[in-house]
């Protein structure tokens, strides 16, 4: 598994996708914006181009030469994407702290706070469970799974951003006390872990069924 992950991060995924978190992360410096969009660029750019890269690089042919189980191929690809998502989160945290220092914490839409990063982490997990199990039914056809993931995360983002603007009690939950925000973060992380476990299981199952 470690070797496969090394292969994914060094050979299969283009270095551009490690710079992208910095580039799109800079969007956080737009004042009074819908900051969940920052993470959505990952779905629109990376999750289209990385699977297309697998095809262009004939990654399946290379994998066939390696002493690995099919299950590990799936797991390594999902872990690699989760690592990339983690890099997006890390840069968003760094730029978010600077943003709040410059502009203050208030935002018309969702504030950049602890709960916000919980919601962002959960959004990645929601995208992953929408995308990966379907993608691994073929391991090359990525168009429809990406559309599904993008639509679901747009709805997800809209629901949270709209609710915070529209309902005061939602502001209290997501932008209230430190404790409230921490609860949101912890719950989001726990749900994300559960979703990721299902993502892995379903993806492996689908990939092993490919004839």
């Amino acid at each position, binding site marked *: 598994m470690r070797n496969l992950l090394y292969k994914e991060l060094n050979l299969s995924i283009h270095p551009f996708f490690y710079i992208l978190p910095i580039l799109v992360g800079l969007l956080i410096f737009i004042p009074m914006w819908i900051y969940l969009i920052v993470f959505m660029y990952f779905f629109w750019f990376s999750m289209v181009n990385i699977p297309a890269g697998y095809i262009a*690089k*004939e*990654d399946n042919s290379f994998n066939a*030469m390696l*002493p690995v*189980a*099919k299950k590990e191929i799936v797991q390594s690809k999902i872990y690699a994407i989760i690592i990339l998502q983690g890099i997006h989160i890390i840069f968003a945290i760094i730029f978010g702290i600077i943003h709040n220092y410059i502009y203050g914490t208030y935002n018309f839409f969702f504030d950049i706070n602890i709960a916000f990063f919980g919601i962002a982490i959960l959004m990645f997990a929601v995208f992953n469970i929408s995308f990966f199990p379907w993608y691994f039914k073929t391991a090359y056809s990525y168009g429809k799974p990406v559309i599904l993931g993008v639509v679901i995360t747009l709805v997800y983002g809209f629901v949270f951003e709209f609710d915070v603007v529209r309902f005061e009690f939602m502001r209290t939950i997501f932008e209230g006390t430190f404790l409230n925000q921490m609860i949101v973060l912890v719950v989001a992380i726990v749900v994300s872990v559960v979703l990721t476990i299902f993502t892995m299981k379903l993806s492996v199952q689908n990939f092993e069924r*490919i*004839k």
Partner: protein
Amino acid sequence: MNNLVVKDLTKKYDGFTLDRVSFEIPKGYIMGFIGENGAGKTTTIKALLNVITKDSGSVEILGKNIDEHEIEVKKNIGYVSGDSFYPKSKLKDITKVYKRFFSKWDDEVYQSYMKRFNLDSSKKVCELSKGMKMKYSIALALSHQAELLIMDEPTSGLDPVARDNLLEVFQSIVEEGLVSILFSTHITSDLDKCADYITFIKNGSIIESCSKDDLVDRYRLVNGTKEQLPPIKNNLISYKENAFGFTGLIKTELVDVNSSIAVGQPSLDDIMIYYSENEVK
């Protein structure tokens, strides 16, 4: 002892069935896997390596069932698929990743093959000719002390000199009697040079799997006049008619020794061609 035992390997697709394919390769020998395009050579190789899921059958490599010990078994195999990979990556970058998967990787052996095949590791795969790409895949497959080498058309795309060099490499590998090689090809002259055993596949079914000499001995090429054709027509695997009469392939035991029909030894090409003829009797 056999390094590879394939038993009743079956894989069904719409319009094509790999039908109960069975063969075995003894330790220290080279087996040529022949058949026309679309006969099922690549499907067999991919199914026996679990690259594609087989419907039924068993595969034992180096005494171990591949379904039960897949990773362990694959570490002792060198597989050359013939497919290209990572065209925009440099050879040294691919090798850096590839060698991590094999605990018995031998950098000295790898470098010697790179030198022998005139491969520059700072080049990208897309900068190599088809033959050079194949040589690079072979260098990778040969550098981790594999006990079984499985190669899908390794000689295709190579010029005659490179092919001859490669066949010499194959022979030197099996010399010590530990490594076995299975390689598919439709260039039968390669097999004349180095194969000990031949497995012949047609339309997904094995026609023959035996030593090269036995295979050639099992068939005879017969030449006769048009008048001589009708009596033996039904015994022929197939035949071709020409202005002077006919030429056909027949199993040796069916040859009538009292007949005046000219009988000769067929080449591997003849056996393949006559089996593929439409006028199958």
